[in-house]
Protein backbone atom coordinates (compact mmCIF):
# COMPACT_ATOMS: atom_id res chain seq x y z
CA UNK A 1 0.00 0.00 0.00
CA UNK A 2 1.23 3.48 -0.81
CA UNK A 3 -0.22 6.63 0.61
CA UNK A 4 -1.51 9.09 -1.91
CA UNK A 5 -2.92 12.55 -1.49
CA UNK A 6 -5.55 14.42 -3.43
CA UNK A 7 -6.74 18.00 -3.19
CA UNK A 8 -10.41 18.73 -2.56
CA UNK A 9 -12.23 22.04 -2.61
CA UNK A 10 -15.23 22.87 -0.47
CA UNK A 11 -17.14 24.59 -3.26
CA UNK A 12 -19.43 26.48 -0.91
CA UNK A 13 -16.57 27.91 1.16
CA UNK A 14 -14.43 28.73 -1.87
CA UNK A 15 -14.55 32.44 -2.69
CA UNK A 16 -12.27 32.40 -5.71
CA UNK A 17 -9.37 34.25 -4.09
CA UNK A 18 -7.01 32.32 -6.36
CA UNK A 19 -4.08 31.94 -3.98
CA UNK A 20 -3.99 28.19 -4.48
CA UNK A 21 -3.42 28.53 -8.22
CA UNK A 22 -0.50 30.88 -7.56
CA UNK A 23 1.12 28.49 -5.13
CA UNK A 24 0.48 25.29 -7.07
CA UNK A 25 0.02 26.08 -10.77
CA UNK A 26 1.19 22.54 -11.59
CA UNK A 27 -2.08 21.18 -10.14
CA UNK A 28 -4.50 24.10 -10.05
CA UNK A 29 -5.74 26.48 -12.72
CA UNK A 30 -8.48 29.06 -12.44
CA UNK A 31 -11.61 29.15 -14.54
CA UNK A 32 -12.80 32.34 -16.20
CA UNK A 33 -14.51 33.43 -13.01
CA UNK A 34 -11.47 32.86 -10.80
CA UNK A 35 -12.44 29.56 -9.22
CA UNK A 36 -9.95 26.68 -9.01
CA UNK A 37 -9.99 23.68 -11.32
CA UNK A 38 -7.93 20.88 -9.79
CA UNK A 39 -6.04 18.44 -12.02
CA UNK A 40 -7.37 14.89 -11.73
CA UNK A 41 -5.48 12.17 -9.91
CA UNK A 42 -3.13 12.00 -6.95
CA UNK A 43 -0.58 14.71 -6.20
CA UNK A 44 2.94 13.79 -7.32
CA UNK A 45 5.21 13.26 -4.28
CA UNK A 46 7.47 16.23 -5.00
CA UNK A 47 4.50 18.64 -5.03
CA UNK A 48 3.06 17.58 -1.69
CA UNK A 49 4.85 20.28 0.36
CA UNK A 50 3.53 22.95 -2.02
CA UNK A 51 0.04 21.46 -1.82
CA UNK A 52 0.24 21.61 1.97
CA UNK A 53 1.26 25.23 1.74
CA UNK A 54 -1.70 25.98 -0.53
CA UNK A 55 -4.06 24.32 1.93
CA UNK A 56 -2.65 26.28 4.87
CA UNK A 57 -2.72 29.60 3.03
CA UNK A 58 -6.25 29.41 1.66
CA UNK A 59 -7.87 32.48 3.24
CA UNK A 60 -11.29 30.83 3.58
CA UNK A 61 -10.04 27.31 4.46
CA UNK A 62 -11.79 25.83 1.45
CA UNK A 63 -8.89 23.66 0.28
CA UNK A 64 -8.07 20.31 1.88
CA UNK A 65 -5.63 17.46 1.39
CA UNK A 66 -7.23 14.08 1.55
CA UNK A 67 -5.30 10.90 1.99
CA UNK A 68 -6.31 8.07 -0.29
CA UNK A 69 -4.80 4.64 0.18
CA UNK A 70 -4.21 2.63 -2.87
CA UNK A 71 -2.70 -0.79 -3.27
CA UNK A 72 0.28 -0.84 -5.59
CA UNK A 73 -0.29 -2.37 -8.97
CA UNK A 74 -3.98 -2.64 -7.94
Amino acid at each position, binding site marked *: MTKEFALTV*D*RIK*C*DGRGLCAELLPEMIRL*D*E*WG*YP*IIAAGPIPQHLIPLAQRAVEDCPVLALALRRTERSKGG
Partner: protein
Amino acid sequence: MNSLLAGPPLTGPESLASHAGRLGPMPAVGPRFIDTLVQSRIAGRGGAGFPAGTKWQAVATHSRGDAVVLVNGAEGEPQSKKDRLLMSTRPHLVLDGAFIAARVLRARRVILYIGERHRAARAAMLQALAERNETERRLVSEHAAPARYVAGAESAAIHFISEGVATPTTMPPYPFERGVDGKPTLVQNVETLAQVALIARYGEPSGTSLVTIAGGVPRPGVLEVESTTTIADAVSLAGGASDQARAVLVGGYFGRWMEARDAWPLRLDQGSLRSHGLALGCGVIGVLPAGRCPVCETAGIMRYLAGESSAQCGPCFFGLRALADACTRIAEHGTNRDDLQRLDRWTEDVRGRGACRHPDGAVIFLQSALQTFGREFAGHRPHSAAEAA
Protein backbone atom coordinates in the same frame (compact mmCIF):
# COMPACT_ATOMS: atom_id res chain seq x y z
CA MET B 1 -53.73 -5.24 -9.40
CA ASN B 2 -50.21 -4.42 -8.34
CA SER B 3 -49.83 -0.84 -9.51
CA LEU B 4 -49.43 2.59 -7.94
CA LEU B 5 -52.57 4.23 -9.25
CA ALA B 6 -54.94 1.23 -9.14
CA GLY B 7 -58.16 1.78 -7.22
CA PRO B 8 -60.86 4.44 -7.26
CA PRO B 9 -60.93 7.28 -9.82
CA LEU B 10 -58.06 9.77 -9.48
CA THR B 11 -60.28 12.65 -8.46
CA GLY B 12 -59.24 13.04 -4.83
CA PRO B 13 -57.44 11.33 -1.96
CA GLU B 14 -58.32 7.68 -1.42
CA SER B 15 -59.68 7.11 2.10
CA LEU B 16 -57.95 4.82 4.55
CA ALA B 17 -60.97 2.50 4.47
CA SER B 18 -60.75 2.15 0.69
CA HIS B 19 -56.97 1.80 0.75
CA ALA B 20 -56.95 -0.87 3.48
CA GLY B 21 -59.94 -2.62 1.93
CA ARG B 22 -58.14 -2.84 -1.39
CA LEU B 23 -54.61 -3.70 -0.25
CA GLY B 24 -55.09 -5.05 3.26
CA PRO B 25 -53.47 -3.55 6.35
CA MET B 26 -49.92 -2.28 6.37
CA PRO B 27 -47.71 -5.35 6.79
CA ALA B 28 -45.56 -5.53 9.92
CA VAL B 29 -42.13 -5.97 8.37
CA GLY B 30 -38.87 -6.09 10.31
CA PRO B 31 -35.19 -5.35 9.66
CA ARG B 32 -34.99 -8.15 7.08
CA PHE B 33 -37.23 -6.10 4.82
CA ILE B 34 -34.07 -4.26 3.76
CA ASP B 35 -32.89 -7.47 2.04
CA THR B 36 -36.17 -7.61 0.13
CA LEU B 37 -35.71 -3.99 -0.84
CA VAL B 38 -32.16 -4.63 -2.05
CA GLN B 39 -33.31 -7.63 -4.08
CA SER B 40 -36.15 -5.59 -5.60
CA ARG B 41 -33.44 -3.37 -7.12
CA ILE B 42 -35.74 -0.38 -7.02
CA ALA B 43 -34.11 2.95 -7.73
CA GLY B 44 -35.17 6.26 -6.24
CA ARG B 45 -37.72 8.17 -8.32
CA GLY B 46 -36.80 11.67 -7.20
CA GLY B 47 -34.33 12.15 -10.03
CA ALA B 48 -30.97 10.69 -9.06
CA GLY B 49 -32.11 7.06 -9.38
CA PHE B 50 -30.01 5.90 -6.43
CA PRO B 51 -30.77 2.31 -5.30
CA ALA B 52 -33.23 2.51 -2.41
CA GLY B 53 -31.93 -0.63 -0.69
CA THR B 54 -28.40 0.78 -0.44
CA LYS B 55 -29.73 3.96 1.15
CA TRP B 56 -31.77 2.04 3.72
CA GLN B 57 -28.78 -0.14 4.60
CA ALA B 58 -26.67 2.95 5.27
CA VAL B 59 -29.31 4.58 7.46
CA ALA B 60 -29.97 1.32 9.34
CA THR B 61 -26.25 0.98 10.09
CA HIS B 62 -26.12 4.47 11.60
CA SER B 63 -29.49 4.51 13.37
CA ARG B 64 -29.47 4.22 17.17
CA GLY B 65 -33.24 4.36 17.32
CA ASP B 66 -33.01 8.04 16.43
CA ALA B 67 -33.21 8.07 12.63
CA VAL B 68 -35.38 10.46 10.65
CA VAL B 69 -37.47 9.61 7.59
CA LEU B 70 -37.85 12.59 5.28
CA VAL B 71 -40.70 12.07 2.82
CA ASN B 72 -39.65 14.07 -0.22
CA GLY B 73 -42.61 15.53 -2.08
CA ALA B 74 -40.91 18.81 -3.00
CA GLU B 75 -41.24 18.11 -6.74
CA GLY B 76 -39.36 21.21 -7.84
CA GLU B 77 -39.01 20.13 -11.48
CA PRO B 78 -41.29 22.59 -13.28
CA GLN B 79 -42.75 20.12 -15.77
CA SER B 80 -43.18 17.21 -13.37
CA LYS B 81 -46.60 16.50 -11.93
CA LYS B 82 -46.34 12.85 -10.90
CA ASP B 83 -45.44 13.28 -7.22
CA ARG B 84 -48.31 15.75 -6.79
CA LEU B 85 -50.76 13.37 -8.43
CA LEU B 86 -49.60 10.47 -6.28
CA MET B 87 -49.87 12.44 -3.02
CA SER B 88 -53.24 13.92 -4.03
CA THR B 89 -54.81 10.59 -4.91
CA ARG B 90 -52.96 7.77 -3.10
CA PRO B 91 -51.66 9.42 0.08
CA HIS B 92 -51.94 6.25 2.18
CA LEU B 93 -49.62 4.39 -0.15
CA VAL B 94 -46.97 7.07 0.50
CA LEU B 95 -47.67 7.10 4.26
CA ASP B 96 -47.45 3.29 4.40
CA GLY B 97 -44.01 3.49 2.80
CA ALA B 98 -42.92 6.17 5.24
CA PHE B 99 -44.11 4.27 8.32
CA ILE B 100 -42.55 1.04 7.05
CA ALA B 101 -39.27 2.97 6.70
CA ALA B 102 -39.71 4.38 10.20
CA ARG B 103 -40.21 0.90 11.66
CA VAL B 104 -37.40 -0.81 9.74
CA LEU B 105 -34.88 1.98 10.33
CA ARG B 106 -35.96 2.58 13.94
CA ALA B 107 -36.82 6.20 13.24
CA ARG B 108 -38.19 8.58 15.80
CA ARG B 109 -39.47 11.15 13.33
CA VAL B 110 -41.22 11.21 9.97
CA ILE B 111 -41.16 14.53 8.14
CA LEU B 112 -43.48 15.34 5.27
CA TYR B 113 -41.67 17.76 2.95
CA ILE B 114 -44.16 18.86 0.34
CA GLY B 115 -43.82 21.69 -2.20
CA GLU B 116 -45.43 24.87 -0.90
CA ARG B 117 -47.36 25.36 -4.13
CA HIS B 118 -48.67 21.79 -4.24
CA ARG B 119 -51.75 22.66 -2.20
CA ALA B 120 -53.98 19.73 -3.17
CA ALA B 121 -51.14 17.30 -2.44
CA ARG B 122 -50.44 18.80 0.99
CA ALA B 123 -54.13 18.85 1.87
CA ALA B 124 -54.56 15.22 0.79
CA MET B 125 -51.51 14.04 2.75
CA LEU B 126 -52.63 15.85 5.91
CA GLN B 127 -56.19 14.57 5.52
CA ALA B 128 -54.83 11.04 5.13
CA LEU B 129 -52.56 11.49 8.14
CA ALA B 130 -55.55 12.47 10.27
CA GLU B 131 -57.04 9.05 9.46
CA ARG B 132 -54.00 7.16 10.78
CA ASN B 133 -53.64 5.90 14.34
CA GLU B 134 -52.18 8.03 17.07
CA THR B 135 -48.85 6.20 17.30
CA GLU B 136 -48.21 6.95 13.65
CA ARG B 137 -49.52 10.50 13.79
CA ARG B 138 -47.27 11.38 16.70
CA LEU B 139 -44.18 10.62 14.59
CA VAL B 140 -45.06 13.09 11.88
CA SER B 141 -44.39 16.76 11.29
CA GLU B 142 -44.96 18.69 8.09
CA HIS B 143 -42.81 21.28 6.32
CA ALA B 144 -43.64 23.22 3.16
CA ALA B 145 -40.76 22.94 0.68
CA PRO B 146 -39.84 26.27 -0.96
CA ALA B 147 -40.73 26.38 -4.65
CA ARG B 148 -37.14 26.33 -5.89
CA TYR B 149 -35.50 23.81 -8.18
CA VAL B 150 -32.78 22.80 -5.70
CA ALA B 151 -35.07 22.67 -2.64
CA GLY B 152 -35.75 18.97 -3.29
CA ALA B 153 -32.05 18.01 -3.28
CA GLU B 154 -31.37 15.78 -0.27
CA SER B 155 -28.96 18.07 1.52
CA ALA B 156 -31.12 21.14 0.76
CA ALA B 157 -34.17 19.45 2.27
CA ILE B 158 -32.21 18.58 5.41
CA HIS B 159 -30.71 22.07 5.60
CA PHE B 160 -34.18 23.60 5.34
CA ILE B 161 -35.69 21.46 8.06
CA SER B 162 -32.74 21.82 10.43
CA GLU B 163 -31.94 25.48 9.82
CA GLY B 164 -34.63 26.99 7.61
CA VAL B 165 -32.40 27.44 4.55
CA ALA B 166 -33.22 25.31 1.49
CA THR B 167 -29.75 25.34 -0.04
CA PRO B 168 -27.54 22.29 -0.59
CA THR B 169 -24.64 21.67 1.77
CA THR B 170 -21.21 20.15 1.20
CA MET B 171 -21.18 16.34 1.44
CA PRO B 172 -19.81 14.46 3.34
CA PRO B 173 -21.34 14.29 5.87
CA TYR B 174 -24.02 12.39 4.01
CA PRO B 175 -27.66 12.37 5.14
CA PHE B 176 -27.31 8.81 6.45
CA GLU B 177 -24.48 9.98 8.73
CA ARG B 178 -25.70 13.40 9.80
CA GLY B 179 -29.03 14.57 8.49
CA VAL B 180 -31.91 16.40 10.11
CA ASP B 181 -30.69 17.82 13.45
CA GLY B 182 -27.57 15.70 13.09
CA LYS B 183 -29.49 12.40 13.05
CA PRO B 184 -29.13 9.65 10.42
CA THR B 185 -31.75 10.53 7.82
CA LEU B 186 -33.44 8.70 4.97
CA VAL B 187 -34.52 11.15 2.28
CA GLN B 188 -36.82 9.29 -0.07
CA ASN B 189 -39.07 10.44 -2.88
CA VAL B 190 -42.81 9.84 -2.46
CA GLU B 191 -43.11 7.52 -5.46
CA THR B 192 -40.28 5.38 -4.12
CA LEU B 193 -42.05 5.17 -0.76
CA ALA B 194 -45.29 4.14 -2.50
CA GLN B 195 -43.31 1.32 -4.14
CA VAL B 196 -42.03 0.33 -0.69
CA ALA B 197 -45.67 -0.08 0.41
CA LEU B 198 -46.25 -2.47 -2.49
CA ILE B 199 -43.00 -4.39 -1.99
CA ALA B 200 -43.89 -4.93 1.69
CA ARG B 201 -47.18 -6.50 0.59
CA TYR B 202 -46.26 -8.41 -2.55
CA GLY B 203 -42.53 -8.95 -2.20
CA GLU B 204 -41.81 -7.04 -5.40
CA PRO B 205 -42.37 -3.58 -6.87
CA SER B 206 -45.19 -2.88 -9.29
CA GLY B 207 -42.82 -2.83 -12.25
CA THR B 208 -44.40 0.44 -13.28
CA SER B 209 -43.23 4.05 -13.11
CA LEU B 210 -45.02 7.37 -13.02
CA VAL B 211 -44.01 9.70 -15.84
CA THR B 212 -45.17 13.13 -16.93
CA ILE B 213 -45.64 13.70 -20.65
CA ALA B 214 -45.13 17.42 -21.32
CA GLY B 215 -44.77 19.83 -24.22
CA GLY B 216 -46.22 19.29 -27.68
CA VAL B 217 -48.89 16.69 -27.02
CA PRO B 218 -52.69 17.20 -26.96
CA ARG B 219 -53.14 15.71 -23.48
CA PRO B 220 -50.06 16.39 -21.33
CA GLY B 221 -50.07 14.80 -17.90
CA VAL B 222 -49.10 11.88 -15.72
CA LEU B 223 -49.13 8.26 -16.85
CA GLU B 224 -48.31 5.07 -15.02
CA VAL B 225 -46.28 3.03 -17.48
CA GLU B 226 -44.99 -0.54 -17.60
CA SER B 227 -41.27 -1.10 -18.02
CA THR B 228 -42.02 -2.31 -21.56
CA THR B 229 -43.82 0.90 -22.55
CA THR B 230 -41.87 2.86 -25.15
CA ILE B 231 -41.68 6.63 -25.36
CA ALA B 232 -43.72 6.39 -28.58
CA ASP B 233 -46.43 4.44 -26.68
CA ALA B 234 -46.50 7.00 -23.88
CA VAL B 235 -46.65 9.93 -26.27
CA SER B 236 -49.49 8.35 -28.21
CA LEU B 237 -51.34 7.72 -24.91
CA ALA B 238 -51.01 11.47 -24.38
CA GLY B 239 -52.66 11.92 -27.78
CA GLY B 240 -49.42 12.77 -29.56
CA ALA B 241 -48.52 12.43 -33.21
CA SER B 242 -44.99 11.13 -33.33
CA ASP B 243 -44.13 12.50 -36.77
CA GLN B 244 -44.64 16.11 -35.77
CA ALA B 245 -41.98 16.17 -33.06
CA ARG B 246 -38.51 17.57 -33.59
CA ALA B 247 -36.95 16.11 -30.43
CA VAL B 248 -37.70 14.60 -27.03
CA LEU B 249 -36.24 15.66 -23.69
CA VAL B 250 -35.86 12.48 -21.66
CA GLY B 251 -35.74 12.97 -17.87
CA GLY B 252 -36.65 16.63 -17.43
CA TYR B 253 -34.29 19.59 -17.20
CA PHE B 254 -31.49 17.40 -15.88
CA GLY B 255 -32.12 14.95 -18.71
CA ARG B 256 -30.99 14.76 -22.31
CA TRP B 257 -32.39 15.77 -25.65
CA MET B 258 -32.80 13.02 -28.22
CA GLU B 259 -33.75 13.08 -31.88
CA ALA B 260 -37.43 12.14 -31.88
CA ARG B 261 -36.89 9.11 -34.14
CA ASP B 262 -34.19 7.81 -31.76
CA ALA B 263 -36.38 8.43 -28.71
CA TRP B 264 -39.55 6.63 -29.84
CA PRO B 265 -38.35 3.02 -29.44
CA LEU B 266 -36.77 3.62 -26.02
CA ARG B 267 -38.44 1.85 -23.12
CA LEU B 268 -39.44 3.88 -20.06
CA ASP B 269 -37.42 1.74 -17.73
CA GLN B 270 -34.47 2.81 -15.62
CA GLY B 271 -32.22 -0.07 -16.66
CA SER B 272 -33.09 0.13 -20.33
CA LEU B 273 -32.53 3.90 -20.48
CA ARG B 274 -29.23 3.54 -18.62
CA SER B 275 -27.97 1.18 -21.30
CA HIS B 276 -28.51 4.06 -23.76
CA GLY B 277 -26.65 6.54 -21.56
CA LEU B 278 -29.93 8.09 -20.45
CA ALA B 279 -31.81 8.27 -17.17
CA LEU B 280 -35.47 8.21 -16.32
CA GLY B 281 -34.73 10.88 -13.69
CA CYS B 282 -37.89 12.51 -12.43
CA GLY B 283 -39.79 10.92 -15.32
CA VAL B 284 -40.54 13.99 -17.43
CA ILE B 285 -40.77 13.30 -21.16
CA GLY B 286 -40.84 16.63 -22.97
CA VAL B 287 -41.89 16.67 -26.62
CA LEU B 288 -40.53 19.53 -28.74
CA PRO B 289 -42.83 20.11 -31.71
CA ALA B 290 -41.24 20.59 -35.14
CA GLY B 291 -42.40 24.21 -35.29
CA ARG B 292 -40.56 25.30 -32.15
CA CYS B 293 -36.99 26.59 -32.29
CA PRO B 294 -34.73 24.26 -30.29
CA VAL B 295 -32.10 26.97 -29.78
CA CYS B 296 -34.58 29.39 -28.20
CA GLU B 297 -36.07 26.55 -26.17
CA THR B 298 -32.65 25.52 -24.86
CA ALA B 299 -31.72 29.13 -24.06
CA GLY B 300 -34.92 29.54 -22.06
CA ILE B 301 -34.30 26.42 -20.00
CA MET B 302 -30.67 27.44 -19.39
CA ARG B 303 -31.82 30.87 -18.14
CA TYR B 304 -34.20 29.10 -15.78
CA LEU B 305 -31.52 26.72 -14.48
CA ALA B 306 -29.02 29.58 -14.04
CA GLY B 307 -31.63 31.49 -12.04
CA GLU B 308 -32.23 28.43 -9.88
CA SER B 309 -28.60 28.14 -8.79
CA SER B 310 -28.52 28.62 -5.03
CA ALA B 311 -25.58 31.01 -5.64
CA GLN B 312 -23.28 29.25 -3.19
CA CYS B 313 -20.63 27.81 -5.49
CA GLY B 314 -18.83 30.11 -7.92
CA PRO B 315 -18.59 27.71 -10.88
CA CYS B 316 -22.37 27.13 -10.74
CA PHE B 317 -23.46 30.70 -10.03
CA PHE B 318 -21.16 32.38 -12.57
CA GLY B 319 -20.77 29.45 -14.97
CA LEU B 320 -24.44 28.72 -15.53
CA ARG B 321 -25.18 32.43 -15.90
CA ALA B 322 -22.42 32.75 -18.52
CA LEU B 323 -23.68 29.66 -20.36
CA ALA B 324 -27.27 30.96 -20.31
CA ASP B 325 -26.08 34.35 -21.60
CA ALA B 326 -24.13 32.76 -24.44
CA CYS B 327 -27.17 30.66 -25.43
CA THR B 328 -29.36 33.75 -25.28
CA ARG B 329 -26.96 35.78 -27.45
CA ILE B 330 -27.07 33.05 -30.08
CA ALA B 331 -30.85 32.80 -29.83
CA GLU B 332 -31.47 36.53 -30.05
CA HIS B 333 -28.70 37.76 -32.32
CA GLY B 334 -27.81 34.71 -34.37
CA THR B 335 -25.02 32.24 -34.10
CA ASN B 336 -21.37 33.23 -33.69
CA ARG B 337 -18.25 31.18 -33.40
CA ASP B 338 -17.01 32.75 -30.16
CA ASP B 339 -20.12 31.84 -28.23
CA LEU B 340 -20.20 28.33 -29.68
CA GLN B 341 -16.62 27.82 -28.51
CA ARG B 342 -17.43 29.26 -25.10
CA LEU B 343 -20.34 26.86 -24.75
CA ASP B 344 -18.04 23.91 -25.45
CA ARG B 345 -15.33 25.11 -23.08
CA TRP B 346 -17.54 26.21 -20.21
CA THR B 347 -19.70 23.09 -20.17
CA GLU B 348 -16.49 21.11 -19.62
CA ASP B 349 -15.20 23.56 -16.99
CA VAL B 350 -18.38 23.71 -14.91
CA ARG B 351 -19.13 20.02 -14.66
CA GLY B 352 -18.53 18.38 -11.28
CA ARG B 353 -17.63 21.64 -9.55
CA GLY B 354 -20.59 22.30 -7.30
CA ALA B 355 -21.49 21.11 -3.81
CA CYS B 356 -24.62 19.59 -5.34
CA ARG B 357 -25.34 18.25 -8.81
CA HIS B 358 -27.19 21.31 -10.08
CA PRO B 359 -24.37 22.50 -12.36
CA ASP B 360 -23.77 18.95 -13.61
CA GLY B 361 -27.42 18.46 -14.50
CA ALA B 362 -27.51 21.77 -16.34
CA VAL B 363 -24.39 21.14 -18.43
CA ILE B 364 -25.42 17.57 -19.28
CA PHE B 365 -28.69 19.02 -20.54
CA LEU B 366 -26.85 21.70 -22.52
CA GLN B 367 -24.33 19.28 -24.03
CA SER B 368 -27.15 17.06 -25.23
CA ALA B 369 -28.77 20.16 -26.81
CA LEU B 370 -25.51 21.06 -28.56
CA GLN B 371 -25.26 17.50 -29.89
CA THR B 372 -28.87 17.02 -30.92
CA PHE B 373 -29.32 20.55 -32.28
CA GLY B 374 -25.78 21.03 -33.58
CA ARG B 375 -27.09 22.09 -36.98
CA GLU B 376 -29.54 24.59 -35.50
CA PHE B 377 -26.95 26.08 -33.12
CA ALA B 378 -24.41 26.42 -35.95
CA GLY B 379 -26.87 28.05 -38.33
CA HIS B 380 -29.19 29.94 -36.01
CA ARG B 381 -30.55 33.29 -37.14
CA PRO B 382 -32.70 35.62 -35.07
CA HIS B 383 -36.40 35.13 -35.65
CA SER B 384 -37.97 38.12 -37.33
CA ALA B 385 -41.08 39.65 -35.82
CA ALA B 386 -43.10 38.23 -38.71
CA GLU B 387 -41.80 34.71 -38.07
CA ALA B 388 -42.45 34.93 -34.36
CA ALA B 389 -46.05 36.04 -34.85
